[in-house]
């Protein structure tokens, strides 16, 4: 029962005026970045990281989590009305959702997306509240060698599941690891890859890297290719409402989407892309009218939309309990924790219990706020898409430069940001996924630390790395993930079907 009591306390502190205000601001910003194509939640949170200097940890983290959830809601709006996914978890929603909108059923599509997101988000947050502490309890026994195995599994799965080619995923990861190496080595104080640059000795700041790889990379990429493309918004008639039949067809996909999305967020499967793809193919198989798929089947919107929200909640489990991010957004939230000198991990519920329960309670509140923001106000959000693209990108770019500079008031960070922006452009141009790079950059130094720690304990005996039963299991999973990319095949098939 103690979890339950802590949660009640959490609600009490989440409902204070300032925390509620930051939560509302977060849901608002999250929906905003979800709606606007080209900016995702990872970027939005990264841009706002400088506020961690002046705002209390609880308020900032509530806002960041609300942005994460909010983007999942907002992304569906753009997918349905524009056929341009606002973020990667909504790619699948565009398949059926946009077809529905073209047949004049935009309202129903938006409603099933928002209500499904709410149902999934609430269920998944409840599971999070009651599983994360017990996972953390178990994780206290996890040793340094097990952490090494765990991180290697995360690297492998994220690199091989994202994007079209496994090899490109691993190259992206390696580039991230190289960036993580830059600066003075934590244990020996030795400078690595600094080339005599004093500013580089302190290491590359993760914030400018994350901001610019998303924002500048995207802006440069769009500039080089798509500037001629305008947006073609499908007008929405009537209100975002569902008929009786829509409800009947939606509730099962919502629940199945939640069941798929949550566990795939907990294990490192590389974010919301895989569960939404899986949910879509499951719904297509189970549907009584599979011929409707490809022409606007409501199940194809309900399932994936529930899956991406449940996935966001699931991703918070390893983040809070193990300190292990499984998506780009979770990685940025990890950085936010670290700027407050809080290290997420097994001891987090003991050392910062009040903070975490406030955060979890605020997720429930945020979900309810998002439902209100998204259903009646959906037409307002659509207006946002009328911002001229030059202004939109100019704003994104200026904010990215501001974020890079403001953190340390240093021009070195701006130089890094521009260089990384070019890397981000090249990654997009040559089909390399971004998330493995972020993960490599953030987890690389941690991996090295745990690796050395394990070897120090064992006095240099490498056998310690696979001595424990847990690490043996993890390495088995790793090998499996490496050689049977089943899910990638499923995803490719869905993609093909969708285009056929």
């Amino acid at each position: 029962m103690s979890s339950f009591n802590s949660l009640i306390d959490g609600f009490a502190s989440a409902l204070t005026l300032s925390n509620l205000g930051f939560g509302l601001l977060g849901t608002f910003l999250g929906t905003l970045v979800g709606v606007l194509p080209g900016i995702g939640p990872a970027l939005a949170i990264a841009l706002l990281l400088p506020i961690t200097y002046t705002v209390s940890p609880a308020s900032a983290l509530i806002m960041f989590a609300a942005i994460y959830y909010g983007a999942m809601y907002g992304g569906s709006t753009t997918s349905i009305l524009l056929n341009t996914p606002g973020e990667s978890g909504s790619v699948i929603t565009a398949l059926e959702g946009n077809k529905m909108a073209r047949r004049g059923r935009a309202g129903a599509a938006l409603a099933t997306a928002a209500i499904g997101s709410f149902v999934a988000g609430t269920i998944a947050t409840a599971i999070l509240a009651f599983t994360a502490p017990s996972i953390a309890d178990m994780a206290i026994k996890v040793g340094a060698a097990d952490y090494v195995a765990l991180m290697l599994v995360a690297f492998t799965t994220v690199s091989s599941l994202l994007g079209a080619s496994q090899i490109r995923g691993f190259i992206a990861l390696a580039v991230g690891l190289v960036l993580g190496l830059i600066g003075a080595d934590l244990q020996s104080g030795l400078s690595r890859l600094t080339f005599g640059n004093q500013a580089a000795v302190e290491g590359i700041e993760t914030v400018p890297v994350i901001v610019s790889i998303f924002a500048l990379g995207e802006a440069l990429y769009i500039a080089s290719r798509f500037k001629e493309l305008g947006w073609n918004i499908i007008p929405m008639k009537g209100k975002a409402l569902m008929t009786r039949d829509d409800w009947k067809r939606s509730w099962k996909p919502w629940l199945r989407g939640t069941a798929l999305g949550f566990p795939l967020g907990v294990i490192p499967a590389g974010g919301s892309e895989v569960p939404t793809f899986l949910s879509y193919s499951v719904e297509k198989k189970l549907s009584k009218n599979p011929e409707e798929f490809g022409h606007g089947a409501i199940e194809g919107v309900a399932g994936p939309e529930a899956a991406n929200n449940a996935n966001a909640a699931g991703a918070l489990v390893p983040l809070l309990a193990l300190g292990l991010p499984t998506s780009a957004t979770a990685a940025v939230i990890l950085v936010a924790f670290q700027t407050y000198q809080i290290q997420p991990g097994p001891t987090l519920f003991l050392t910062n219990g009040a903070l975490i329960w406030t955060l979890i309670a605020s997720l429930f509140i945020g979900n309810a706020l998002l439902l209100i923001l998204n259903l009646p106000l959906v037409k307002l959000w659509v207006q946002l898409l009328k911002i001229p693209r030059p202004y939109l990108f100019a704003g994104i770019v200026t904010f990215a430069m501001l974020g890079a500079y403001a953190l340390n008031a240093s021009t070195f960070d701006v130089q890094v940001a521009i260089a990384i922006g070019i890397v981000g452009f090249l990654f997009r141009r040559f089909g390399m996924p971004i998330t493995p790079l972020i993960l490599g950059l953030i987890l690389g130094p941690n991996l090295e630390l745990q690796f050395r720690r394990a070897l120090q304990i064992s006095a240099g005996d490498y056998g310690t790395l696979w001595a424990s039963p847990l690490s043996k299991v993890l390495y088995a999973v790793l090998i499996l993930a490496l050689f049977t990319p089943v899910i990638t095949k499923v995803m490719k098939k869905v993609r093909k079907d969708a285009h056929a």
Partner: protein
Amino acid sequence: MGSLFLLGLIVFWDTARTELPAFNLTVSPKVFPYAIAMGLMVLSAILAIQILRGDVATPEGLESGDPIVKSDYKTFALVLVSLLAFLLLIERAGFVIAASVTFFGVTVAFDNKKHLRAALFGTLFITFIYFSFTRFLNVPLPAGIFKDLL
């Protein structure tokens, strides 16, 4: 021709990248840089072989098999110049000027025809951002040449 050029670019780009960690091999503590460098070199070699076999990269947002449009490097360069302008101006002229120049530069790059409107709007927007960050969020930004004014 296009794909040949692309190929050369990727291979060149990979070689340039792999040089970095290789340089670090002699440096201690070297286990990690060494492992990463080895990994990168092996991976680039595999990628090079894949590309030679015809598995050309697919730009993001396209499906494999879609025709690859030639990149528009004029726009690209304009955005890049706007970024460099920020770097040069931020500490010399201050945030308001640096960011306004960047904002305007990007709107020009993205083919906005109404230059005067964009410049006006951008400057107003940036000034607003400047005040909200320095006054409300307490994030200091350089005032630059307006030091006495702001």
